[in-house]
C-alpha cells in the first residue's frame, strides 16, 4: 500500500491505496466521484478525462500514485455554487448530448481546449481537438456547436481559462 495525497476539486484528500489503482478508479471508487466515466478503458474514448494541474488527461491510463501532490479537477468540480459552468450550460443549451455517457469527458476536453487555444474556436479546430473523445450517439454536430458557444460564453462570463476550483 502507498499513500497518495491529492487536491480534488479544491479539497485535500489522502488515502492508502494499492499502487496499481488507476486514477479513474480512485476517483470513482474511493472518492465516489462517479461523474468521471470508464468507457473504452484503453485511452481512446476520453470518457475518463480529468484535469491534472490544469491539463486534460485520460484517468484510465494514469496511476493515482503517479500524480501524488497534484490538483485534480473532475466534472463535479466545474459547477460553482449550484450554477453550471458556462461549458456545461452550453452543452445543455445546444443539446450536445444524447445518452450522456461521453459528456463529462467531452466537457473536460472542451474546457481544456479553451485553456490551450482561447475563446474563439472555429469548427475545424474543435473537430481536430476532439480527436481523443468518442461519442457514439450524436454525430458530433451539436457537440461542436456547444463547444464553440461554451468557449465564447467562458470569455464573456470572465471565467478564467483555468477553472475556478483550481
Amino acid at each position, binding site marked *: 500500500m*502507498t499513500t497518495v495525497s491529492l487536491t480534488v476539486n479544491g479539497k485535500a484528500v489522502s488515502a492508502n491505496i494499492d499502487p*496499481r489503482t488507476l486514477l479513474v478508479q480512485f476517483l470513482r471508487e474511493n472518492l465516489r466521484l462517479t461523474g468521471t466515466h470508464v468507457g473504452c*478503458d*484503453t485511452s481512446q474514448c476520453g470518457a475518463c478525462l480529468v484535469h491534472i494541474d490544469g491539463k*486534460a488527461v*485520460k484517468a484510465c491510463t494514469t*496511476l493515482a*500514485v*503517479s500524480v501524488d501532490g497534484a490538483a485534480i479537477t473532475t466534472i463535479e468540480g466545474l459547477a460553482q455554487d449550484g450554477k453550471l459552468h458556462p461549458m456545461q450550460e452550453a452543452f445543455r443549451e445546444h443539446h450536445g448530448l444524447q445518452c450522456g455517457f461521453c459528456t463529462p469527458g467531452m466537457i473536460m476536453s472542451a474546457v481544456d481546449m479553451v485553456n490551450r487555444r482561447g475563446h474563439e474556436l472555429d469548427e475545424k479546430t474543435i473537430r481536430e481537438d476532439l480527436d481523443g473523445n468518442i461519442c457514439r450517439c450524436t454525430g458530433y454536430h451539436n457537440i461542436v456547436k456547444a463547444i464553440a458557444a461554451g468557449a465564447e460564453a467562458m470569455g464573456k462570463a470572465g471565467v478564467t481559462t483555468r477553472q475556478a476550483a483550481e
Partner: protein
Amino acid sequence: MYAFTYHKPTSARQAATLLAKKEDAKLLAGGHTLLPTMKQRLASPAAIVDLGACADLKGITLKGRNIVIGAMTTHAEVAASAEVQAAIPALAYLASHIGDPHVRHRGTIGGSVANNDPAADYPAALLALGATVITNKRKLTAEEFFTGLYETALEEGEIITKVSFPLVSKAGYAKFRNPASRYAMVGVFVAKRGSDVRVAVTGAGEGGVFRWPEAETALKVRFSPKSLDGFKHGSKGINGDIHADPEYRAHLIGVMTRQAVAQATGK
C-alpha cells in the same frame, strides 16, 4: 493489472540505482503504452520505477547547434516549445500530431523512443535528423539505437536521459494516420543539412523505422517533390494488416515523402 511495488526517484541517478536493485523492474514514463499493456496482463513487472519526479530528465535547451530535449518532456511541451518551433519546426509539428491532445499531455519523447513502436512518429524524426540518444551510460546515434521491431540498443539498467537533435536547413514530416489509433500507417520525415539529405520512414517497415536511400540520392540532386516524380518504394519488407496491405503502404511511402519535401520547402 498484476500487483507491483512502486518507486518514485527524484533523479536519473536514483532511478538507475533502483532499476539495478529491484528485480524485474520497469521504468514508467508517460505510461501510455506500459499501463495499457499491464492492464491487459501482457506485462507484469514486479516493480515500477516512475520517472515522473526526475526533474533532471525534463526540459528543452538550445545548445550550440543542437536542440536537446529531456527524456521526460511531453509531446505537448515539445509541440508548444518556442525553441523547437524556431529551430526545427517539423519536429514541433510531428509532436503536435502524436495521438490526441490528452495523450500528448502525458506521453514523453523518452518513452516513445525507448518503446520503438514500428508505427510511432519520433523514431522517424530521430533517424532523419541524425539525432543522438543520450543515456545514463553513453551516447548512441539513432542508427545504432533503433535495432528492430520494438527493439533498441538499450541495455539492462540503462535509462535514456536526453535526445539531441542537430539543427538542419530544411525538414518536413508527413503522416497518413490510422484514424482510430492515430498511429502512422506511413509517416515520412525528410531532413536536409548542407548537401546531406535523409529520408526516414515509420509505420511501414516490418523491422520498424528505416531510411529510403534511393529517394535520398534523388533529393540530393534537387531537394524538391518533383525529384521524386514516378518514384515508388517496393512492397518487399513492408507491413500488411487489416488497415492496409503492403502495396498500399508502399505507395503511401512515395506520397508521404513528396508531401514531406513539399512541407520542408514551403511549397
